[in-house]
């Protein structure tokens, strides 16, 4: 386990460095204007010298202990990013655990009901959840709530912006929809794979109850396949966080990160495409750390939960 954790840390350092290197690409453009100031053409030239210069410019304040710089209100970017990250964590952490628990539960349910009529609520519902984009569910939930509001049944909910509990609850639900179905599908196939295994037949022959078979034997061993997907789920949560925070005006880390990383649509000078590298570096730091932590947690959890990892020397 130790070497795996060390490897993960090294991977993070490498990935973060490459991201920073890309972020510090020189971005000045030359704009050619006509006689009355109208736009004619734009030119861009990459030079290693300019790239090195922009890296130096970025690191000088960092070395002087000024951190990633400050925004227009003189707040340091790093603390601003951390505040916004906390807001987003209120969505990510509950969504992560809710999607894992409900997803595994749904997978077990799908497995138990795989024959017979209840399959409709089991496997087939999961299939629909996987193939229909979660945006559809989100739009329908929003429209339903709006309809209820117009009819005066549920009023006074404020679904937009950050800071009100109902917006947090709804956003957590929006975020968990897809990962839940995704995990349900993986749990189901992990359980089906274990089903025919020899050790299950032995346990059944020795008279273990079906409850014990499913929860103690099959799920424990099937978990190995789930841990492979932790990274995918965290990545999915983060990309969807982006869309959901933007869609519901929840001003968290993903909302601001997008504001900083997307260039302006209006281009009127050589500096129009410049990015606020300090702010982006601060946000990117927290996002990559979050993914790193998720990876570490899944490594540690593997070590404790998986039967063959606990006893073995891997």
């Amino acid at each position, binding site marked *: 386990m130790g070497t795996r954790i060390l490897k993960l840390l090294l*991977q*993070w350092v*490498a*990935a*973060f460095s*490459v*991201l920073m290197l*890309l*972020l510090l*690409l020189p*971005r*000045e*453009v030359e*704009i050619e*204007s006509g006689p009355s*100031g*109208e*736009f004619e053409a*734009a*030119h*861009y030239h*990459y030079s290693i010298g300019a790239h090195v210069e922009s890296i130096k410019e970025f690191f000088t304040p960092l070395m002087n202990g000024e951190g990633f710089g400050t925004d227009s209100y003189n707040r340091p970017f790093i603390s601003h990013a951390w505040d916004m990250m906390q807001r987003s964590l209120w969505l990510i952490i509950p969504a992560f655990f809710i999607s894992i628990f409900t997803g595994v539960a749904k997978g077990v349910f799908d497995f138990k009901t795989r024959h017979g009529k209840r399959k409709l609520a089991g496997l087939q519902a999961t*299939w629909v959840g*996987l*193939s*229909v*984009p979660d*945006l*559809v569910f989100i*739009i329908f939930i*929003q*429209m339903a709530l*709006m309809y209820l509001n117009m009819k005066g049944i549920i009023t006074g909910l404020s679904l937009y912006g950050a800071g009100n509990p109902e917006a947090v609850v709804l956003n957590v639900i929006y975020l968990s929809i897809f990962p839940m179905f995704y995990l349900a599908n993986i749990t189901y196939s992990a359980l089906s794979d274990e089903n025919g295994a020899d050790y299950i037949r032995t346990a059944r022959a020795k008279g273990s109850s079906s409850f014990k078979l499913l929860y103690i034997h099959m799920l424990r061993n099937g978990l190995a396949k789930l841990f492979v997907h932790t*990274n995918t789920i965290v*990545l*999915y949560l*983060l*990309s969807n966080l*982006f*869309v959901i925070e*933007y*869609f519901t005006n929840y001003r968290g880390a993903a909302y601001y*990160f*997008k504001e900083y*990383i*997307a*260039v302006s*649509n*209006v*281009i*009127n*000078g050589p500096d*129009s*495409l410049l*990015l606020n590298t300090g702010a982006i570096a601060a946000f*990117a730091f927290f*996002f*990559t750390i979050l*993914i*790193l932590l998720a990876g570490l947690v899944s490594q540690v959890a593997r070590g404790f939960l998986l039967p063959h990892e606990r006893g073995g020397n891997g």
Partner: protein
Amino acid sequence: MNKHLTIGGLMLAFLLFLTFIGPLLPVIDNSISQEGMRFSGGEIEVPPFPPSAEDPLGSDREGRDILSLIVAGAEETLLVILAIVVIRFAVSAVLGIGSYYSKTIRAVLSIWSQLFSFMPSIFIVIFFAGLPFVVFSEHRQIWMVVIIAAVEVGRTGDMIKTSMEYSAKKTFFEAGIVSGCSQWTLFKNYFWPDLRLTIVTNFISDMGRTLFLIAQFAIIGVYLQNAFWSIRGGGVEAVNDSFIWPTLLQNIHHDVFTAEWVVLSTVGIITFTMLTFYLLSSGIRRYYQDKYHQSS
């Protein structure tokens, strides 16, 4: 009967009909004309117009008929996602298959997938979309297609590699080695049948995923194609100038309250297309599984 394959096939036929025969239908306004206002029963209406006999699916904020916009955008939408997935799978097939044979290629694939595993692909694409040479490029759409294809090469390449390794562990593969097959025969007869299924089914379902990814970009205001409009006082503004479906979602914040038909029809056609690809993908998987079980 293979229900998924049949329904998926019919849905695909409908999509192709919409794309190629759609523009010839009389209800479709191929010039995508804008309409500022409309008189009905002595009253003036301004766009967005709700669904009516004139605009079966309503109109957008510029008075353009949504149904016509969907038909006009169909070909480009399908081509863009096809291009993305073709590039992605061509590169990942080389890396995935190659990493079974060569250590260097394995290292390249592993670096690629680890680099992108610390950042959601949506962030990386937005970042690249803002690079100066991508913003001003005449071939911005090609750049964007390549970038969107590249960020997920790690994932699909790993998948192909895993499929190879899985086959290599099986007893039938050992039998092939023992009986003295050449590397080429081993690949053609032992790896390829399983690999082909993995590639084909994932290729088709990736087309659905990619469409959804582009829709997500449109919601947050990142487009594949730009035109530049001069603005007063010098400078230009980059605006979207393509009819690709997801761009209909650019006003989703307002439309979801006031012109829900725009959102519903766009999300409807995107969902329909995604369902088509998922049904086809699972139908094909089932088709091969049935065939395999019959012959064994």
